[in-house]
């Protein structure tokens, strides 16, 4: 019986990669906290999961000139954040909200990492047969 890494690891590698992307987006939000007209953005995890489960065909970019399909981040649309208190210069970044989301995302990343590590540990003990 061959070990299939895709089956063995489940959804966790995708989750890890999504969380990495989300971290990047939240970091961009925080970096642009003082940029006029910048709109804070975020990903919706459940819509990514939905897309992954439906396994719709993905379009690959093979040329720089190609326009991006509307769903590019692992099948999830990037959404705009609804600010609690919009500022006058059109910036919708609220540092406390972004910080909380970033911390949440970091913890989720660590959770995904832990899941993968445990899967690997399981595989290792199966291979060793101890």
């Amino acid at each position: 019986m061959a070990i299939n890494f895709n089956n063995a690891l489940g959804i966790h590698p995708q989750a890890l990669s999504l969380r990495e992307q989300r971290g990047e987006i939240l970091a961009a939000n925080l970096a642009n906290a003082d940029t006029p007209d910048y709109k804070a953005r975020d990903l919706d995890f459940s819509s990514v999961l939905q897309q992954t489960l439906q396994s719709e065909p993905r379009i690959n970019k093979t040329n720089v000139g190609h326009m991006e399909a509307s769903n590019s981040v692992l099948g999830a649309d990037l959404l705009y954040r609804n600010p609690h208190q919009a500022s006058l210069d059109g910036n919708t970044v609220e540092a406390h909200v972004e910080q909380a989301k970033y911390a949440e995302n970091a913890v989720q990343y660590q959770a995904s990492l832990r899941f993968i590590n445990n899967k690997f540990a399981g595989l290792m003990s199966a291979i060793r047969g101890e």
Partner: protein
Amino acid sequence: MSSLNIFDIAGSGMNAQNLRLNLVASNISNANSVSSSLDQVYRSRQPVFAAELQNIMDKNDAASGVDVLGVVESQAPPIMEYAPQHPMADELGYIYKPNVNTVEEMANMMSASRAYENNVEVLNTAKNLILQTLKMGQ
């Protein structure tokens, strides 16, 4: 490795806030630089930030750093003060003081330093996560 993007993004944010701090320092230190004509007087300098767009066609490309478009001088009128005994006074007896609002600058400084801290925090967290990822499976 795409997660290294986060270093560029947070780095550009720190760079922008650092410039802002520099300008605050320049404004505050020149707040009392008196001059004897309107066009020589120091004017408050402010940075202009914009989001760095990597690919304008890509509406999902959100991860953008901060671009510093430049530094503008405040258009507020400098303060004219009648002080005929001042050594810098012009022939009408006026001296000109910069349009720097020190209270505003102090608030600006606090905001810049907090934003800088946020970026450092983001960078530290990202670094820890990447280091943990490198140890995956061990």
